[in-house]
């Protein structure tokens, strides 16, 4: 293994969190920074030809190539894990920008009490209401700690929306349940298509509080505090699973990369797959990492020495690399010992109601976060007496741009045929007369849901795949049933001619797409007993190792995680620049 020249900071992964850290450290310090990204370079220009549903939407051209590395899955420790041979239930990105290139840009904040979910639940309902075998815990930081950083995220991405709580003042048209915002959104809400506007009017009529989705796709031309200008969205409908060809949707390559590229102290090396984080074990000093080893596209292996390692390689791979590197004590579900791999969650996310209408929706038009949502059933925003679950989630109605291969074929329940003339006729009629009410809810953490290394299946380099052990519990089933009923009520109130309802979660299904918001594994917390890293992402066992991303979340929020991931990254960057780089040691 060839040893390369030392850098001050090596960042593993060139997605949202890794590149934000590279930008912050690169512009605020003179440190030499190297980002190692296993995929290829990507740019707005390379997306001009990608509006091809087959290759991108169906064959998943922008996603991690499962042939070389995937994950394995089992429902419980008694079951044999099998590889997810083609990604379907979540879609990890690849290349510079990572999943931040193909996202929808839907950017809500978490509700304030989400960060203290255990304490708040016990206070309000009593410990007897906590689910059996739960692994719930507070974050150790609060919404108020994160609020200034959330606001920086709003400005960085140019979020479009309407505040519902501006410095404590309730604002008409926004989300009345949201935490206090220190500033209005930098940009007004996106335009709405017919379906989302119908949902908005109906929800308002039912006494709910619909509000425009916070969107990282711009409603108008915007220049962010870094001087990066992006154009307003043209509603072409190619966000999710596609890169934005005009840069209206905030993506790491159009928002962070242009700043990074101007900095001589930051370099991005593509085609570099990190295999291990290296630790110095001599002289009894095991409390520091020394760099990483990686393999390039030609199969050459290198040791990249670094003064500090930032692990930002997406949720599941963060845990996997720490497990492969022997850093931290692997979680043992049987005994509860160890922390690495615990609290695996996957946002409870499903199409609660598919509504069929007698009017066309023109749903080929849209954008990833051009829509309306309502938080009336989020968190603890509603009266839980009479329901048998904790927490909740949001309903969303989007005009994301409906594409024909993925969307053709949904027919009202009474049509039993799924091929042939009867099905074809019904599906042609309903293709543009359909709308879906999506539910996105919290997923509590449980002792039995975790990550470890698979004993059988390997990646292309012979390293063990990471193994997911995950299933739904009574809380999720009860929540799903309740929320499906609410969604059906809304759909009927929208004058749907027929409503198909979600059949239920069943066992965890690797074939149903349910958001790419897998979370946990390297969770943050207040002590090495209950977490892998502190609230700054600093590893408890190695003070110069920092972990970023959704792997830090002790449980899954109803909110899409990216704004929270970026807010945490900003907070860590501040602590690095203001404290750690000056005096080292444990960040408190």
């Amino acid at each position: 293994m060839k040893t390369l020249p030392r850098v001050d900071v090596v960042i593993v992964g060139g997605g949202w969190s890794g590149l934000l850290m590279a930008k912050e450290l690169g512009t605020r310090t003179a440190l030499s920074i190297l980002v190692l990204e296993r995929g290829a370079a990507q740019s707005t220009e390379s997306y001009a030809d990608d509006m091809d549903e087959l290759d991108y939407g169906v064959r998943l051209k922008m996603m991690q190539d499962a042939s070389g590395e995937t994950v394995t899955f089992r429902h419980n420790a008694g079951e044999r894990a099998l590889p997810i041979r083609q990604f379907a239930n979540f879609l990890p990105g690849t290349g510079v920008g990572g999943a931040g290139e193909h996202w929808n840009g839907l950017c809500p904040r978490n509700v304030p009490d989400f960060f203290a979910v255990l304490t708040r639940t016990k206070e309000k309902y009593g410990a007897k209401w906590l689910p059996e075998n739960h692994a719930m815990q507070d974050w150790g930081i609060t919404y108020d700690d994160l609020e200034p950083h959330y606001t920086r995220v709003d400005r960085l991405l140019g979020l479009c929306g309407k505040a519902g709580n501006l410095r404590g003042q309730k604002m008409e048209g926004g989300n009345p349940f949201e935490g206090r915002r220190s500033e209005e959104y930098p940009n007004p809400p996106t335009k709405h298509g017919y379906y989302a506007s119908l949902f908005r009017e109906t929800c308002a009529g039912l006494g709910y509080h619909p509000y425009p989705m916070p969107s990282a796709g711009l409603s108008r031309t915007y220049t962010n505090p870094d001087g990066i200008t992006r154009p307003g969205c043209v509603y072409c409908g190619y966000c999710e699973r596609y890169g934005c060809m005009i840069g209206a949707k905030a993506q790491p390559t159009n928002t962070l990369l242009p700043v990074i590229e101007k900095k001589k102290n930051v370099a991005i090396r593509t085609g570099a797959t990190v295999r291990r984080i290296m630790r110095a074990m001599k002289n009894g000093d095991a409390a520091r990492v020394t760099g990483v080893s990686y393999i390039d596209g030609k199969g050459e292996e290198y040791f990249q020495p670094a003064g500090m390692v930032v692990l930002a390689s997406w949720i599941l791979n963060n845990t996997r690399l720490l497990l492969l590197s022997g850093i931290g004590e692997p979680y043992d579900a049987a005994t509860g010992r160890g922390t690495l791999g615990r609290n695996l969650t996957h946002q409870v996310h499903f199409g609660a109601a598919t509504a069929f209408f007698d009017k066309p929706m023109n749903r080929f038009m849209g954008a990833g976060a051009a829509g309306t949502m309502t938080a009336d059933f989020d968190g603890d925003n509603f009266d839980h007496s009479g329901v048998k679950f904790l927490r909740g989630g949001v309903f969303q109605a989007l005009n994301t741009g409906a594409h024909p291969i993925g969307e053709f074929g949904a027919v009202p329940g009474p049509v039993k045929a799924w091929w042939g003339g009867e099905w074809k006729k019904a599906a042609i009629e309903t293709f543009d007369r359909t709308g879906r009410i999506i539910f996105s809810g919290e997923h509590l953490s449980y002792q039995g849901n975790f990550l470890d290394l698979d004993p059988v299946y390997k990646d292309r380099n012979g390293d063990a795949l990471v193994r997911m052990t995950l299933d739904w519990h009574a809380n999720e089933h009860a929540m799903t049933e309740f929320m499906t009923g609410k969604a059906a009520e809304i759909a009927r109130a929208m004058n749907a001619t027929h409503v198909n309802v979600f059949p239920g979660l069943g066992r965890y299904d690797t074939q149903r797409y349910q958001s790419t918001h897998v979370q946990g594994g390297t969770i943050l917390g207040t002590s090495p007993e209950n977490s892998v890293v502190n609230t700054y992402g600093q590893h408890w066992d190695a003070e110069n190792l920092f972990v970023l991303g959704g792997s830090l979340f002790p449980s899954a929020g109803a909110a899409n995680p990216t704004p929270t991931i970026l807010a945490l990254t900003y907070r860590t960057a501040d602590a690095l620049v203001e404290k750690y780089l000056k005096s080292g040691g444990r960040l408190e």
Partner: protein
Amino acid sequence: MRRREFLTVAAGGLGGVVVYSLDGKALLLGAQGKAPEKANGKSKDKVVRIPLRFFTEQEAVVVAAAAGRIFPSDESGPGAKEAGVAIYIDRQLAGPYGLDAHRYTQGPFEENAAAEFGYQGAATPREIYRAGLKELAGLKGPAGFARLSASEQDDALRKIEASNFFALLRQHTIEGMFCDPLHGGNVDMVGWQLIGYPGPRMNNAEDIDKHYGEAFRPKAIRLGEAAGHAVRGSEDEK
């Protein structure tokens, strides 16, 4: 070395799909219940000969017939035959997808895994088709399925409804109906026009919040037109 075989689309629109073999015999696909029409040079419809990349002529005939029952050409509009679904599937199977280039294919495999684990078998899409077509065709000789009546074909398909092969065939039929024409299906954008989808339209900024409750149906364009140059599909990658 495989024999060169061709599948041919009638360029005149809804004229059906014609297979030519090397001896010049032409057979109009999917003409159930009728004697096969001669599609010789005297036909008014201009035809485009497309060499098959993976299927044999007989396999293509069966695929076209089966896709034509999944998505029939009938009073509700054109179907798999007019869209060239068989050509689309042939190209997909010949390309990286057909060889499972992007699926995790390390063993051990578990052929009988529960549905929540997804397809866990060892066979590639090519192998699944080859075996599935053999079974389907074998009912009445090599291309016998294509010579059955429509209702007999439906019965035969119903018998394999639960198979992996049928799941792929159905999914690929939908793909071939509605993919960008660059992939060989959705010929003349017949699939898109059937459902009012305008293709990759680059700018809807002035229309997204208008036309509420009314059909807005701009003229369909293909990706090559929208991008201003030809775009290659992944099936054409080396």
